[in-house]
């Protein structure tokens, strides 16, 4: 059962109130063993805007995020990108177009430059420096090893690595959870400029203030069910879930 927060929630066809539809989920159900992670979720995610997925822990937010780049497959229903079902698309191209940055940073190499090149092989040093600057990391870090990075630095490096592939969509799972206030502001500015340049962000965050500032739409999940979807959080009753 899906409860829509009308008016201005969903618009029929391939438009939402915030723009053209990029992703659409149709009656999507995900089970893992006995657990029902998502239960007949139907919603749309507009292009060129930030959509925040909110809800308490265990509500299915990360599962929804992982569906969008096929790290998870639905047991029922379908997920479409630009009107095409995800299984009909080349999965490798999809994942480069739709980049997911996980909550826990995972570094794959020993050097910062190599880490960025894991996102884009052949990346030049100038491009790498620009990526670091985008996530408020000092250019001098390029020659450093990954071993001494703090959690916040590693998280921002993972974000820069994802940006290296020039994705059209960023799926961000708690991107500021390990960051201090200044670093969190930098990520926020990055998100704002990413959407201003036409990119799409799907954000999972417990940071209500961040969500209010950058999200154009919200999808609220509870126990795997979509309980609310609608426009900007400052006009909706966005609850605290911390």
């Amino acid at each position, binding site marked *: 059962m899906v409860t829509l927060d009308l008016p201005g929630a969903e618009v029929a066809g391939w438009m939402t109130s915030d723009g053209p539809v990029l992703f659409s989920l149709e009656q999507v159900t995900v089970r893992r063993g006995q657990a029902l992670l998502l239960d007949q979720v139907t919603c749309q995610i507009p292009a060129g805007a930030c959509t925040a997925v909110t809800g308490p822990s265990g509500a299915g937010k990360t599962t929804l995020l992982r569906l969008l780049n096929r790290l998870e497959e639905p047991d029922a229903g379908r997920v479409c990108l630009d009107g095409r079902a995800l299984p009909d698309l080349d999965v*490798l191209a999809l*994942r480069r177009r739709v980049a997911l940055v996980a909550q*826990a940073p995972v570094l794959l190499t020993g050097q910062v430059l190599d880490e960025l090149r894991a996102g884009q092989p052949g990346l030049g040093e100038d491009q790498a420096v620009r990526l670091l600057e985008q996530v408020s990391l000092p250019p001098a870090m390029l020659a450093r090893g990954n071993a001494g990075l703090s959690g916040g630095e590693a998280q921002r490096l993972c974000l820069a*690595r*994802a940006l290296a592939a020039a994705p059209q969509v960023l799926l961000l799972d708690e991107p500021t959870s390990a960051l201090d206030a200044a670093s969190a502001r930098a990520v926020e500015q990055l998100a704002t400029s990413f959407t201003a340049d036409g990119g799409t962000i799907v954000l999972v965050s417990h940071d209500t203030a961040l969500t209010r500032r950058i999200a154009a739409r919200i999808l609220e999940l509870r126990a795997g069910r979509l309980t609310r979807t609608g426009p900007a959080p400052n006009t909706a009753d966005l609850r605290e879930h911390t």
Partner: protein
Amino acid sequence: MNPAVPTWAGVAASLALVAAAVAIAWRQRLHLAREITIAAGRAGVQLAAVGAILLLVFQHTGLAGATGWLAIMVLIAGQVAARRARGLPRALPVATTAVAAATGATIGTLLALGVISTQARVVIPVGGMIVSGAMAATAVTLTRLREEAAAARPAIETRLCLGQPAAQAFAPQPARRAAHRADPLH
């Protein structure tokens, strides 16, 4: 007297040992007497049945029969190895192919070089040992592979998210480590 065939005295001695084990279990109130009796009876029936079939194979079918016998053993060994690696996709065909390849290559080499006789009574026991070893090695390798995949899941998923193909995202380090750990000498 053929030393491979037990005498009736030997069978009687075995039954006496089983009876002693049952008696001890009963006297010590271990609640195992019934299980021991059933297990011994079942083993006796199975051994008699297998022995009868082997006798037929030995006397009438030659190398072809031995090959068929080993093929059945390979299929069963593949199922056992795959069961131990539950959770891995396509574990059954992979395990069966691995056991079959190891068994075929080893027994084929032994036969081709004349190391062992082509008689069924030689091929089947030697082949059985090879199948058993191959099954154990396959099961350990698949189990390690599953453990490595579970441990390296965040890194594998990260590589997938960067657009790497599944094989590239998983390999090469975890597979190498799994093979390394499957080697009992390491």
